[in-house]
């Protein structure tokens, strides 16, 4: 009886440790829904586009969201604007220089001001944002939504959890050497960025 009880305790302890352990969420979305939207003001019409070539991994512990860390990568070649000539310019050397800088990355090193209500955590993610090969330390407000056991609803035959990450922030293109010669009367220095991504942790 004692032996059975100790075995049961061991199983419970292992399960508990597994459940409490940080999970790694993969943000390469098979549905291709993940996106990053960018917007720059311009006189005739704001230049708005998006990128959906998103990948990366984030380690998240539902029991302790403050220790969240990870890296999100956006393929620069997936940047798209609705005007084909503008897209050519955007990918060119003066703007994003996609050939030389194929990735835009954000590496989160720590979360500050963490507030969790239910499955939703809001925080300020401090980390390194790299655009056009220029890396800068930034702090970005993020919202993390932990969706337990919801992976099967998105991808049948797969069991696991989902983590939805949303972030909206601005950067200055002059800080990253993105067409610094373009006058602000023609296109604003401020770029509004919105990230809406979901990652999956398979069990």
């Amino acid at each position: 009886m004692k032996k059975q009880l100790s075995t049961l305790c061991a199983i419970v302890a292992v399960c508990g440790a597994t459940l409490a352990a940080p999970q790694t969420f993969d943000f390469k979305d098979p549905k291709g829904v993940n996106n990053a939207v960018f917007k720059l003001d311009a006189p005739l019409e704001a230049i708005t586009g998006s990128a959906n070539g998103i990948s990366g991994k984030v380690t998240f512990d539902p029991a302790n969201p403050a220790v969240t860390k990870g890296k999100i990568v956006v393929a620069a070649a997936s940047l798209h604007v609705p005007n084909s000539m503008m897209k050519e310019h955007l990918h060119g050397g003066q703007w994003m220089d996609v050939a030389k800088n194929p990735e835009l990355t954000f590496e989160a090193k720590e979360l500050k001001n963490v507030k969790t209500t239910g499955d939703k955590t809001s925080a300020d993610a401090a980390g390194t944002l790299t655009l056009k090969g220029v890396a800068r330390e930034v702090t970005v407000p993020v919202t993390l939504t932990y969706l337990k056991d919801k992976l099967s609803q998105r991808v049948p035959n797969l069991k696991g959890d989902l983590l939805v990450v949303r972030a909206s922030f601005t950067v200055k293109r002059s800080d990253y050497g993105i067409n610094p010669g373009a006058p602000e009367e023609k296109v604003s220095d401020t770029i509004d960025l919105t990230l809406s991504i979901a990652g999956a942790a398979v069990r």
Partner: protein
Amino acid sequence: MAFRHILQLASLAIVFAAVVLWLITGANRGWTKTSEPKRTLDEVTGIEGITYEKRYRPGCDFLGAALLGAGILATASLLFRKQPTPNRPA
């Protein structure tokens, strides 16, 4: 028909065709677009996915280019003025 008249008619036709095309494609007052975003909601995550569909929507730059082309043709037509006929002796 005199060549200058052909040029003037061509410039009018360009303006008319450009304005009609601009109007029937939705009178886009922004830049010309060669694709349009289509948003689809992922109900599980609540994320709006964005895909692009190829669609041509001329904008103000298209209208401007058409007006410029028509103006060049109309100006060129002035080079082909009707030669004054010499007065016949009475």
